[in-house]
């Protein structure tokens, strides 16, 4: 059974929290997007400011521009940014998983080349995993990279790559050997320069009106030999090692947080019992989810790979993010669709609700996560 140890955040992390809040207060004009979703605000200037404070790549070695701080300190920075609705999308993937991946599997040359730029908030990464015919079944990717004298020749299509139309690099999962009986063999991760290599990036509008994710076409795109991350053929092991980073953070339960904030504002300090109960219920969920997420940060700090625990936090957190707008809309008899006092609530509620289908899809669907948990329980 999965254990989530009780952890008290260290004093150093709490001190840092104060600094982050102070910084956010000074950046108030850049905040207040209509929701607290981590994909909403893409603001390179804000990312550079964060990098200047040492808050990107915080846990990485100083040699690569990191701050050698703990996962708890990183946790505190990320949750403060999200809760405030800060525009974190530009550096988010690079900080959360591309950097750690390069640290673990990348060559010395790759680390020196990419990591310092990431920590400065100047170098942004996207993920290239899904394809038109590859969603949850990630091992079925068909994009190929073929070794030639001048480098790797890439052909195929990647899909749902968030911010690829404005980020610098993509880490693509590609097939470097023909598919065999071992579906997980022959896959590799390769770095693509989205501005130089000739891949065609086509933004795709989502149903909420946003234009964050993309289709990327590779038509005989040639990249230098040294763009392969780790050993060719080791892609599957590498991709799955990213998952604990990708799935356990506060972005997995805070996407709808601003809905609760605006609901509390609208109902006021003397909320009627129906409204108060919903606030209490949501807070109880948030407290438990946050503590579980911090427990996972503790496991990462100890050098563990808590894949199952991370899947569990994400599964619970995503369900809560979807439940929250549903809960609050039925907690008032007032017509919030047509009432000035509720206008801020209406905006964040509408925005979050329209984004909510993605919560249980991105980063591993609910169904895939349940499979991971079932495997952790020894059922498959």
């Amino acid at each position: 059974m999965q254990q989530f140890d009780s952890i008290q955040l260290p004093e150093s992390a709490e001190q840092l929290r104060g600094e982050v809040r102070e910084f956010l207060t000074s950046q108030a004009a850049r905040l207040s997007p209509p929701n607290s979703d981590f994909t909403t605000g893409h603001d390179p200037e804000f990312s550079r400011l964060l990098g200047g404070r040492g808050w990107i790549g915080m846990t990485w070695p100083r040699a690569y521009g990191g701050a050698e701080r703990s996962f708890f300190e990183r946790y505190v920075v990320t949750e403060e940014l999200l809760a405030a609705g800060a525009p974190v999308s530009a550096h988010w993937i690079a900080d959360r998983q591309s950097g750690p991946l390069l640290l673990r599997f990348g060559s010395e040359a790759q680390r020196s080349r990419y990591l310092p730029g990431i920590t400065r908030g100047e170098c942004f990464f996207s993920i290239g995993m899904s394809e038109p015919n590859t969603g949850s079944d990630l091992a079925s990717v068909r994009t190929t990279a073929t070794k030639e004298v001048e480098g790797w020749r890439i052909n195929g299509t990647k899909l749902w790559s968030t911010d690829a139309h404005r980020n610098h690099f993509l880490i693509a999962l590609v097939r470097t050997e023909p598919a065999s009986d071992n579906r997980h063999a022959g896959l590799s991760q390769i770095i693509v320069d989205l501005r130089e290599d000739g891949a065609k990036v086509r933004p795709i509008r989502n149903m909420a009106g946003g234009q964050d994710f993309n289709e990327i076409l590779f038509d005989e795109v040639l990249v230098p030999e040294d763009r392969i991350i780790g050993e060719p053929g080791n892609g599957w092991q590498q991709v799955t090692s990213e998952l604990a980073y990708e799935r356990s953070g506060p972005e997995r339960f805070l996407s709808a947080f601003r809905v609760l904030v605006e609901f509390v504002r609208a109902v006021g300090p003397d909320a009627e019992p129906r409204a108060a109960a919903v606030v209490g219920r949501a807070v109880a969920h948030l407290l438990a989810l946050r503590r579980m997420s911090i427990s996972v940060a503790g496991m990462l700090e100890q050098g563990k790979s808590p894949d199952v625990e991370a899947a569990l936090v994400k599964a619970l957190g995503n369900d809560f993010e979807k439940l929250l707008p549903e809960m609050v809309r039925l907690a008032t008899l007032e017509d919030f669709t047509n009432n000035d006092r509720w206008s801020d609530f209406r905006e964040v509620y509408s925005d979050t609700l329209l984004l909510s289908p993605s919560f249980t899809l991105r980063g591993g669907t609910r169904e895939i996560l349940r499979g991971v948990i079932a495997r952790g329980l020894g059922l498959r």
Partner: protein
Amino acid sequence: MDTRGLLLDTATRIFSDHCDKALLDAAETGEFPERLFGLIRENGFHGLAMTASEVPLIESFLVLKVAGRFALPLPLAEILLGNRWLDRDDRLIAIGIGDATGARNVPWGRLADSVVAVRESGEVALLGDFTVTEGTNLAGEPRDRVVADSVESLELSDDAFSEMALSRVMLMAGALERVLELSLQYVGEREQFGRPISRFQAIQHHMAVMAAEVAAAVRAADAAAQAIEGDRFFLEVAAAKSRVGESVSVVAELAHQVHGAMGFTHEHQLHHFTRRLWAWRDEFGTELYWQTALGSHVAGLGADALWEFIATRG
């Protein structure tokens, strides 16, 4: 092994050795488990929560989680906290919800040497010259009505009602873990269509949902227990009773679903746990009661203080 480990290990050994189906069935017919009660006294659990024991109070609540795992058919929470509040090692103390004439929902009030009445307001009283009308909760646990001729008000520094609510939180956390274990075992053994039902994705998803709910409930319960000496104990109990109660609704339902008709029989042990879960979530404040208390407090702090409240250190 550290002190806590030794304590919980001892509790686990005693409870697992004695809390079998026969004992649980017997207790439901009103038979007090004297021998087990004697063992609990002999092993020092009786006075564990008393100030004189010098054992931190949290340990008593962790023992209650173990008690929940085994559906211990004894009023251990009442014994622990009653002895603490009265500061005396009575043979059997019962604690119920205070009302105008005495107390309701008193576990084993019929055998109690002392009965304490706790009100939502936090007022605590020792009942005297009482008469008992026997009753049970939906798990078949004795829950008696006590009418008292005299009442002695007690001045406690403890938040008595919250401590009682936390006792139910810990019992539920332990029972939830057990229900998950029983379900995991059952789906691995039960075969249909020529294979264990654990091979079916529908069952795997049920189990994943249960595991997630149990993990959240246990984490919430532990947090409330940790907060016992802190200044937001009441609020952490509120959050835990709400969160754990929600888990109970999901986990008990799914546990019965994966156990099929077998789990619906009296002969199977599952219902000893699920019925207790259903009973305990209602005792000392339902989810709605605690959600309203917590939500009123948070709303009173204001929208811009909401995050500060959630971003607690512990």
